[in-house]
């Protein structure tokens, strides 16, 4: 048979294939997963800084109303919308999966690259296109959409909402393009994890970071279609006048041509995507923080199998809790009861994870390095945000708290600050691998303490405001019968904290630039980590990662503080014989 060139994928091919041939193919049109990861990372951090500035502007308006005349109600709503959408999708999803997913998967699994490097490259450039479309909406007539990040119809596409002409269309287009990019990347991640693991890397020897990225990617591939479906249908409602989501409606005194559509249908679609999205962001963060905690506490992760199963269970359950975002949409009480129950059930595997992180620290040899500080900070912020989630998961408590600052405080703690904490931990932790240089320690500690304490100064008072009934998404409170004047002072205080935290991120950016330019080369594997990504012979890892021969994996990724072994850790690719030779003379065989 002449089936010679049966489309051999990258892993079949010799290591010298796909080698970059010039500056352009090495840094721009690169098919190397590490370069693509950095491209994803830089783009995501850039667009995240835009969203950070938007949040600062929002806080200025809320803290000091009637002071900043360039922030009118329209602009305020646009800031809210763009801040939310950018942070959730274009920063967190892209940086966790496109950035760290790309960087870590092949290295942690002992693969040479992603299985489809060309598609991987395409994924980044499509993502960049989606970001450009999104940013373009700032420059069109009417500005970006101000419909809130949930984009609920009918108001999202009707006159009166800021950006109802071009802004909303660009937003929906950008989302659609992003989903295409994510699907190309996600197919790659899943296939690489399932097929390209090196010799000896069984599923249960994979680091938890990979498990988190794996399940999150599967969630993304199954949940993003719901967003795509709703984006397509809403675009058609807007452009071609169909009535998928649009009911008969009178807008600005004029009866429109729409009739019979169901806005609640959109809400169901949106949250069928929206809730798994929370875990698309959270699961990679769970995985990566497990790595950081284990390495810097010099202790194996507590309950590895439980941690894996909890990730999978959370992934499955995340598809049956979506309507807890919609208790106030007028749903049947039976329906609400069902979703409240599933919401409380999903707290069980989540709590298992939190306990196991704490138990990993217990009697560990804790090194308070900057990544470890951020990881421990994450345990605090995540527990905090998770507990308020239990409040909001119950229908009777959610009804009065819905659409107040309590909700804003809750979700910023649980899916804003917490994944960001892990992202910082991960950047500080893996930066030596990426660049060969350690980020400056002193600047890192300043960055951590200001960020960690600052987020509490921002979000704790918000819970209190929520209990008082202060509604979210209001341009200005004005005089109300139910709030004291101290509410305004508290809002001003939150704004001051938010600005301090926002400016403190410049320390981090400066640290990145400073280290890349002036930092000294650090030793190989500076944290003494056992997982495979730190073990390539050349450092930082070159194209193809592993030189001539793929590594062989002999153990799991968490052999720290092993008794009777000279080093306090055993890398995954060290065979048993080599350890026995390394052992101290009095040592028993393992």
């Amino acid at each position: 048979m002449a089936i010679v060139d049966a489309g051999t994928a990258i892993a079949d091919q010799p290591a010298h294939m796909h080698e970059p041939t010039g500056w352009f193919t090495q840094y721009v049109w690169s098919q190397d997963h590490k370069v693509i990861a950095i491209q994803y990372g830089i783009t995501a951090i850039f667009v995240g800084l835009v969203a950070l500035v938007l949040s600062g502007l929002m806080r200025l308006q809320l803290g000091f109303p009637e002071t900043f005349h360039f922030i009118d109600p329209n602009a305020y709503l646009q800031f809210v919308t763009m801040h939310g959408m950018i942070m959730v999708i274009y920063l967190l999803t892209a940086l966790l999966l496109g950035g760290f997913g790309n960087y870590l998967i092949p290295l942690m699994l002992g693969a040479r690259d992603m299985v489809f490097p060309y598609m991987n490259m395409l994924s980044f450039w499509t993502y960049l296109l989606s970001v450009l479309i999104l940013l373009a909406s700032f420059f069109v007539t009417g500005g970006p959409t101000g419909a809130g990040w949930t984009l609920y119809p009918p108001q999202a596409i009707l006159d009166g909402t800021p950006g109802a002409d071009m802004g909303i269309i660009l937003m929906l287009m950008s989302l659609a393009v992003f989903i295409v990019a994510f699907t190309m990347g996600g197919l790659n991640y899943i296939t690489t994890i399932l097929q390209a693991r090196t010799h000896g890397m069984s599923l249960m020897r994979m680091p938890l970071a990979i498990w988190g990225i794996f399940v999150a990617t599967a969630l993304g591939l199954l949940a993003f279609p719901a967003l795509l479906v709703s984006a397509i249908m809403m675009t058609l409602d807007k452009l071609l006048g169909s009535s998928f989501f649009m009911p008969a409606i009178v807008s600005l005194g004029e009866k429109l041509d729409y009739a019979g559509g169901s806005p609640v249908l959109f809400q169901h679609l949106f949250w069928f995507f929206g809730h798994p999205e929370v875990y698309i962001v959270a699961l990679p963060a769970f995985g990566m923080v497990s790595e950081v905690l284990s390495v810097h506490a010099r202790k194996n992760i507590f309950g590895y199998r439980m941690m894996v199963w909890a990730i999978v269970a959370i992934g499955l359950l995340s598809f049956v809790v979506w309507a807890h975002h919609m208790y106030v949409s007028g749903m049947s009480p039976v329906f609400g009861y069902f979703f409240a129950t599933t919401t409380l059930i999903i707290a069980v595997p989540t709590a298992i994870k939190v306990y196991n992180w704490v138990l990993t620290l217990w009697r560990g040899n804790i090194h308070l390095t900057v990544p470890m500080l951020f990881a421990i900070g994450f345990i605090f912020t995540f527990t905090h945000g998770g507990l308020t989630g239990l409040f909001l998961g119950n229908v009777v408590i959610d009804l009065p708290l819905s659409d107040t600052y309590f909700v804003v405080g809750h979700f910023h703690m649980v899916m804003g600050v917490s994944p960001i904490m892990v992202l910082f931990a991960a950047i500080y932790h893996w930066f030596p691998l990426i660049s060969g240089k350690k980020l400056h320690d002193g600047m890192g500690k300043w960055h951590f303490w200001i960020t960690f304490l600052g987020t509490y100064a921002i979000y704790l008072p918000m819970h209190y405001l929520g209990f008082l009934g202060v509604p979210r998404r209001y341009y200005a409170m004005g005089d109300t019968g139910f709030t004291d004047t101290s509410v305004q002072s508290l809002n001003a205080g939150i704004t001051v904290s938010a600005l301090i935290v926002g400016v403190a991120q410049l320390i981090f950016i400066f640290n990145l630039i400073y280290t890349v330019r002036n930092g000294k080369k650090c030793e190989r594997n500076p944290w003494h980590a056992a997982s495979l990504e730190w073990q390539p012979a050349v450092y930082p890892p070159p194209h193809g990662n592993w030189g001539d021969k793929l590594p062989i994996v002999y153990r799991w990724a968490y052999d720290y503080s092993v008794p009777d072994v000279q080093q306090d850790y055993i890398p995954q690719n060290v065979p048993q014989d080599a350890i026995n030779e390394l052992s101290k003379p009095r040592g028993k065989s393992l």
Partner: protein
Amino acid sequence: MKVFSEITEKSWLTPSYTSPLEYSRIEEGIEIPVNKKPVLVILLVIISVFFTLFVVTFIARSQYPDFQALAGDYWQPFYNPQRLWLNSSFLLASSIVLEGAVYLLRHNKVQWSLLALGISLLLALQFIASQLLLFQYLINLGFDYASNPANSYFYLLTSLHAIHLLAGIVVLGWLLVYVWRSNGRKIRYEGISLCALYWHYLLVLWIFLVLLTTSSPGTYAFIAALCGVTLN
């Protein structure tokens, strides 16, 4: 079950050359082979989710009073869906011919296989062209895109199907040109057979969409009731 035993492995107890569950590929220095078919299967699952979500909204929307099913009363266009089934036959033929092309390729009859690939592509294009003519016919009858949600869904679902088919046509056309220009030395068997799988999938999806859009209001009400949707 292999999956079960894999995810219950106590990996902390098994420091050894391979884990007890590792079944093959142990020799040092051997690269890991990769099979492309699962990628396509995952992609097909994603496309299925995508269309299923449309169908769920379709069923819910069909229970609103303004929804006039295209196969409802006898003056509706799909009361007799003959024309739609005629179009479908092009897609069926395309799928069969493509399977034949894969068979010929497997038996090393490259020239015949290329011919069959070309015919299959033309049939697929013919299908899309006939659908466009059907769109025109419907619009001439007054069944505009926006005049009723049933129409909107029909145009939307069939167009999305066509977009997926067009993507397949681009890929298959590229493979055809590639094999042709290599004078049959590089035959890309795996890629072409995966295209065939994709084609069959789109055929099944198409038949499902035809059955869905040409069902009677009673059928929709029944499915909706099964799903617990009773709006009327």
